[in-house]
C-alpha cells in the first residue's frame, strides 16, 4: 500500500479516538464551563480496572464492560464529590482541582496496579484485512474502533436530540438558572453529563491502550491531542470536537509518518498555536446567544 494511504487510514482510526476524547472534554465544557484536565487520567484508571478484571480471568468483553461502567461511575462520583462543591469558585480554582485529580490518579494507579508497562489486549485482530490479493493497513480492530466511536456518538446524539432527558440536559447546560425554574433538577443533569463524558473517555482508553501500551501516564498525550482537537473545533461545538479530533488524527499521522514519531506532540503544539493565534477561540467558534 502506498505510504500516504497507510498514513491516512492510520490517521482515521487514531483520529476517531482523539475525537472521542475531544467529545468528552466538550461535553463537560458545555455543561459546566470546565476543562476536565483529569479526563485522560480517569480513562487511564478505568482501563487499568479493565485489565485487572482480565488478569483475574475475565474474558475481554467483561473487561470492556468494566471499563465503560466504571467510567460512568467515576464521572458521576467526581462531579458529585469533587466538582460540585466548587461550582461557584473562580474557574482557576476548578482547573487546579482537576489537575490535582490528574496527579492523584496518575500516582494512585501504579500504587494500586504496579507501575510497570503492561500490554492491553485488543478487541479483535490487529492484522490488516485482505482486500483481494493485497493486505490493507486496516484491521478488524481498526474497524471496531471506528465503529464503536461512531456508535457512541450516534447514541449520544439520539439521547440529546430525541429524548426528554437529553432535552433537560441541554437546557441545564445552556442556562442552569432558567432550567431550575422549570423544575429541572440541574444537579442530577450535571452528574449525568459528567458520567456520560467519562464513559466516552473510558472507551477511548480501551481502544488506544493496545497500541500505546498501558502505563500510568499513557493517556497524557491522548488528552493533549483530544484537547487540541476540541479547541480546533471550538469548545462549544460537539460536532466541531469530532471534526477537530479527526483532523488532528490525520495531521499527526502525517507528521509522525514523514517527520518521525517523536515529533507528533510537537506537531500538535505547532498546529494548536497556529490555529489559536488566528482564532483565539478555536476554528468553529461562534458567538452564541445564550439567553435573551
Amino acid at each position, binding site marked *: 500500500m502506498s505510504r500516504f494511504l497507510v498514513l491516512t487510514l492510520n490517521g482515521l482510526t487514531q483520529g476517531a479516538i482523539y475525537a472521542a476524547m475531544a467529545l468528552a472534554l466538550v461535553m463537560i465544557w458545555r455543561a459546566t464551563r470546565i476543562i476536565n484536565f483529569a479526563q485522560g487520567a480517569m480513562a487511564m484508571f478505568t482501563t487499568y480496572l479493565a485489565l485487572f478484571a482480565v488478569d483475574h480471568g475475565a474474558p475481554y468483553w467483561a473487561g470492556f464492560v468494566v471499563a465503560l461502567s466504571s467510567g460512568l461511575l467515576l464521572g458521576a462520583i467526581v462531579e458529585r464529590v469533587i466538582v460540585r462543591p466548587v461550582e461557584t469558585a473562580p474557574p482557576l480554582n476548578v482547573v487546579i482541582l482537576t489537575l490535582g485529580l490528574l*496527579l492523584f490518579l496518575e500516582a494512585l494507579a501504579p500504587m494500586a496496579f504496579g507501575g510497570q508497562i503492561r500490554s492491553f489486549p485488543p478487541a479483535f485482530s490487529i492484522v490488516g484485512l485482505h482486500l483481494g490479493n493485497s493486505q490493507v493497513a486496516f484491521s478488524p480492530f481498526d474497524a471496531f474502533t471506528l465503529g464503536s466511536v461512531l456508535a457512541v456518538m450516534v447514541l449520544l446524539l439520539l439521547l440529546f436530540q430525541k429524548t426528554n432527558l437529553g432535552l433537560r440536559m441541554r437546557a441545564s447546560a445552556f442556562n442552569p438558572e432558567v432550567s431550575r425554574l422549570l423544575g429541572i433538577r440541574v444537579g442530577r443533569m450535571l452528574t449525568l453529563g459528567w458520567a456520560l463524558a467519562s464513559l466516552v473517555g473510558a472507551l477511548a482508553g480501551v481502544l488506544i491502550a493496545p497500541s500505546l501500551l498501558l502505563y500510568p501516564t499513557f493517556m497524557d498525550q491522548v488528552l493533549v491531542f483530544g484537547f487540541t482537537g476540541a479547541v480546533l473545533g471550538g469548545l462549544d461545538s460537539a460536532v466541531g470536537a469530532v471534526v477537530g479530533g479527526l483532523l488532528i488524527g490525520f495531521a499527526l499521522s502525517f507528521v509522525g509518518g514523514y517527520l518521525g514519531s517523536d515529533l507528533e506532540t510537537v506537531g500538535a503544539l505547532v498546529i494548536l498555536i497556529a490555529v*489559536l493565534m488566528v482564532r483565539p477561540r478555536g476554528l468553529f467558534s461562534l458567538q452564541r446567544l445564550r439567553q435573551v
Partner: protein
Amino acid sequence: MVAAQSRIDRLVRPTLSRHLLLALGAAVLLLLLSTQIGAYDDYNLTAVAIFAIAAAGLNLLTGVNGQLSLGHGALMAIGAYTASLLLKDHPLPVVVVLLVAVLSSGLTGIVFGYAAARLRGPYLAGATLTLAVALPQVATRYKSIFGGEEGLTVPPTSPPAWLGADFPPERWLAWIALAAAVVTMVLLANLLRSPVGRAFKAVRDNEAAAALAGIDVARTQVLAFVISAACAGLAGALFAYWSGVTAPAGFGLSLSLQLITAIVIGGLGSLAGAVWGSVVLVFVPQLTSGMASSLNVPSSIANNLPLAIYGGILVIAMLVAPHGIQGAFRRILTIGRARWGHTPAGGQKGVVDWDDPASDT
C-alpha cells in the same frame, strides 16, 4: 530618639531599601544555616532554593498576572539543557552558565508569550499543557544533541580555591543557589511594587478596565510570561548542577504540576508563599520515603506517594483553603484585627478571576 527613628524610617521606607535589607538579613541567616548543617541538608537547601525560584516566577505569571501555565516544567528543561550543553565539553564559570540559561529560556518565553498573548483561560492552559508534553519529546528525537532518553551529564561545580580544599561542594552549590534565590526574590518583590507589577494585577483583575486605563495588555502578558520563563530557566540550570543529569524524564508534566502545587500551597500571588511551597515539595518525598522504609512499604507505593499527596493537596486545598498557607496567615490576621475592633482588610484576593468572555451565564 525621634531623630534616630526618622533616620531609620528614611532608610526603611523606600521599597528597594526595605527589600535589600530583608534580603541581606535572609542571606546572612541562610549562610549561617548552611554552615551549621551537613552536606545532605545543604543538598536539600539547594533544592528548596531551586524550586523557590521556579515557583516564584510561576506565581508571578499565574497568581499575580492570572495566566495559568502548565508548561513551566518544560521551561525549566530549557534552562537545564542549555546549562548541560554549555558544560558538555569544557567548564565555564557558573555565573556565565546561569545567565545564558536565563537568556535562552527568556527568549523561549518571548516566542511562546507572543504566540499565546491572546489566549485566555482554558486555551492558554491547553497550549502550555501541550508544551509540557511536547518538549521532552524533542530531546529524545534529536539524540545526538540532547543525549536521548539517558540525557546529558553535568559535571559538579567545584568550590573556588580560596574557600579551602575541605570546603564541601554541596555547600558551595547551596550558596550559589541561595544567592540566586535571594537576588530573584528581591527583583521580583521590587517588580511587584512597581507600576509593572500593578499592571500585572490590573490585567488579572479586569482586563477590559486595564486596557481602558491605558495598559498595553498584550505587552503585559508577554512580559509576565518572559520573566516567569527566565526564572524557570535559572532554576532549571541550577537543577542541572544539582542533579548532575539532565534527562527528559525529569521534566515531564508532573514537574509542571508540582510547581503548581507549590504555588497553591504557598498561596497564589504570594512570593513568600513560593518558599513554603518549595519546602513542601522538597521535604514531602523525604518524609514519605522515610516512612515507607520504616514501615516496609513496597517501592511502587513509596515512589508514588508524594505525587498522590500533592494531587490530594491540590484537590483538598481548592475545596477547603484556596488561599494556601500565606492566605491562611492573612486570614488569621484579618479575623484577628476584626475581633480587636479594626476594620477588616478589604477584598481577599488570594485566588484569581479567570477572564473568560466566552461565558455569559
